[in-house]
């Protein structure tokens, strides 16, 4: 499949994620601070959206309000057509468990469990009955194999590298087969070789048909996405469309993004 037809397929696919006039105001500050506002966004199923913007522009806030972590104070956030703002605490946690995968800058794991058990934790929680649990475990093992960390499954979480740990987070976030994978600066704490490991993993996930929303400061990472939006002071001010990712185009795309970011004042 060429890049052009993939891009077309993505445009025609049904919407995985959508928000309308989304806003978040923190009332804990005096005066209250409106951190994001007026956000209209739609991500097609199979799309890969990168969110960029200066520090404090509200990227993480937007991500958390789209993913069912936090509650928007205005507008609506829809995941597969379902309005998240209308859900109660338990339904929201169910959405996070089964429909959403989250990856953070600091890979976060329970110290008392080994890598594999950490990866399987949500999948086993979601499983009802022995058969589903066995399926979940098989899926987790398959993911670990795919992302090259099967051999460290029995290791404690302090005995593996940052890159391996972040790939483990990706495995954990995918173990419940979510409809959208959210990543907040997934490579922000990694060196360049680990960054490439993790971005290759995410690109692979995307190529497998997953929908991804990723916050990043790194143009090289954003170049992997098929669409990049720019956030300034909590508002979406510009966006850039690309075709499907391919290795040969990487350098050109990155340069293109760097120029674009400079135009945005970064």
């Amino acid at each position: 499949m060429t890049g052009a037809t993939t891009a077309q397929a993505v445009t025609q696919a049904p919407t995985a994620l959508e928000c309308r006039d989304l806003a978040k105001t923190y009332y804990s500050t005096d005066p209250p601070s409106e951190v994001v506002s007026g956000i209209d966004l739609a991500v097609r199923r199979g799309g890969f959206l990168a969110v960029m913007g200066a520090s404090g522009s509200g990227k993480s806030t937007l991500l958390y309000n789209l993913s069912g972590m936090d509650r928007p104070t205005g507008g609506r956030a829809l995941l597969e057509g379902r309005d998240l703002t209308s859900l109660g605490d338990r339904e929201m946690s169910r959405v996070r468990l089964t429909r959403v995968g989250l990856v953070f800058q600091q890979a976060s794991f329970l110290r008392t469990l080994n890598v594999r058990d950490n990866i399987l934790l949500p999948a086993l929680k979601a499983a009802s009955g022995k058969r589903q649990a066995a399926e979940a475990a098989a899926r987790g093992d398959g993911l670990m194999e795919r992302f090259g960390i099967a051999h460290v499954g029995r290791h404690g979480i302090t005995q593996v590298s940052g890159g391996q740990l972040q790939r483990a987070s990706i495995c954990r976030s995918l173990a419940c087969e979510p409809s959208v994978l959210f990543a907040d600066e997934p490579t922000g704490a990694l060196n360049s070789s680990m960054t490439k490991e993790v971005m290759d993993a995410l690109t692979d996930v995307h190529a497998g048909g997953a929908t991804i929303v990723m916050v990043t400061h790194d143009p090289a990472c954003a170049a992997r996405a098929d669409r990049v939006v720019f956030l300034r002071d909590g508002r979406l001010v510009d966006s850039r469309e690309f075709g499907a990712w391919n290795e040969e185009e990487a350098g050109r795309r990155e340069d293109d993004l760097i120029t674009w970011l400079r135009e945005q004042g970064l």
Partner: protein
Amino acid sequence: MAAEYGERYPDASVIPMREYVQQTMSYATDALRGAAVLSAVFGPGVALLNTSLFLRLVLSRDRGKTGLLSAVGFSSGEIVGQVRLKVLVAAAAGTAMGVVFAGTAGESLVGLLVASAGLGIGELAFIPDPLIAYGVYPLALMGAGLLGALLLTAPLRRADKSAWLGR
């Protein structure tokens, strides 16, 4: 009986033993009773304060873990419920230990203190009301601990989950 003796020995003043103790020792028993009532009232207060401080510490230490668990799909209800259960178990264990201690070493310890205070009391025996000492009061202590946990964890339910991620 005292009245009988009183008739037989009109020169002496005869009073029942209980009254005698009351008359001669009232300063000591009253003081002890006062102390007991005072500590009974302050006990649950201290328990509440202790649990709250301890829980505050635990909650801030476990912040990242809480954020992680909610991110992977545990509800605030489940997380808060687990914290409350932990507090209840800790409060129950603490209270049980306290009750056992008071029932065994407590008596001689207080006796020793009283004796060394030079009140002229050599030996002291508690006569606890079993219903209060082993039922109502321990429950009140645990209840105070649990109340502290309820008050401190209630806001967690409404909080934004990302607040625990330490971004």
